[in-house]
């Protein structure tokens, strides 16, 4: 699994790629740690762009649950966007649509989450 991230105003957008299965769920956890443990820096939301994720196992979902708890503890939001049809079904069956917000695209998420982040997103395109 590969992971990159970028800041768009007050939103951090994380981009995992590849399957998030039992073997590499901990790699996602390690990749998210600097974001989740960062000192208060005005971040209002973590948005995970799942366009490149073709599978997520229960261990991967657990990593998202831990991230969701940490973001909520900071009074910040967490969302996922651009889920493939299979990953969307896994989210629904696992009832994870109650754990993170789910959006059809990064743009749709930013529209709901932050005008400043949306402007930064559009400017970078």
């Amino acid at each position, binding site marked *: 699994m590969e992971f990159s991230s970028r800041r768009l105003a007050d939103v951090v957008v994380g981009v995992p790629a590849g399957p998030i299965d*039992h073997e590499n769920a901990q790699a996602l956890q390690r990749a998210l740690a600097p974001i989740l443990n960062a000192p208060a820096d005005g971040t209002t939301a973590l948005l995970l762009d799942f366009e490149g994720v073709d599978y997520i196992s*229960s261990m991967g*979902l*657990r990593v998202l649950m831990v991230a969701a708890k940490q973001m909520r503890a900071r009074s910040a939001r967490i969302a996922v966007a651009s889920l493939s049809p299979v990953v969307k*079904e*896994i989210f629904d*069956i696992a009832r*994870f649509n109650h754990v993170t917000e789910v959006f059809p695209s990064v743009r749709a998420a930013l529209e709901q989450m932050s005008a400043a982040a949306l402007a930064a997103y559009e400017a970078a395109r």
Partner: protein
Amino acid sequence: MKRVRFWGTRGSLPVALTAPAVREKVIAALRAADGRRFASDAEIGAYVDGLGMSVSGTYGGHSPCVEIETGGGEYVLCDLGSGVRPFGQKAIARHGPGSPQTYHVFMSHVHWDHIMGFPLFTPAYLRGNRIRIYGGHSVLEEALRRQHAAPSFPVEFSALSATIEFVRLEPRRCYDIAGLSVELMLQRHSGDSYGYRFSSDGKTLIYSTDSEHALSDLEETNSFVEFFRGADLVVFDAMYSLSDAISVKADWGHSSNIVGVELCQMAGARQLCLFHHEPVHGDAAIDRVLAETRRFEEITRGGRPPLLVTAAYDGMEIAL
């Protein structure tokens, strides 16, 4: 092993089908008939059988009790939930009260839903019967004696006429009991629970209920995969959704349909049977969980052989 028969499948607390729920089923059946006429009772029966569990049946409400039909002359059970009462009545009806029998009972643990049927297990009151109760807990005998004691129940344990023996088993040892090879495994549950691996005649059954799986511990996951390895049937605690099991109900000691599928897939098991149903779930909710679990298995199967997924109901039989 010939087959597995479910006498109690509900977790935590027995439930009963209510009058409003029955009424809804009748309305749904009549609506689906849509004015159709039936020429015979057999035709009506065939129609009813095609309606599905949530309309023409019910998953049932007894707490856990599962019978393993070994093909031998002695009975083998897992747990003593309220389902053991109808099992006991059936056994007595089959043999008559004057025909002593031997019952081997393997206990997952001694929480109330798994022992509550024993005070009403009629064979325990009949002289000549032999009941051997196996488990990994040191408090096995104490727990069963205590629920018979006043003021909880009017008949003291010491008044039971059957010969009742308690046998402590150790995890990771292999025992030969009632013609079965038996191995148990410590599970994550308040006060501990034990899963069982039963093998005979080239068939393997896993009974793994009241077991929470720590998804952060890959080593623990792998040890369950090995325990489940190649099983013909895995009876699995799928009480909660995954999100509930790892958030609001974390540390409650139960698992989910998602983890059940994943463990069975990794272990190369052939059939997963969802068990220990959440008592607040009606038949339609369990039907929905079953359909979703089958779909989850399908979309995550990859190149593996299909895993058959079923949901246990009181009265269900699975041939091995």
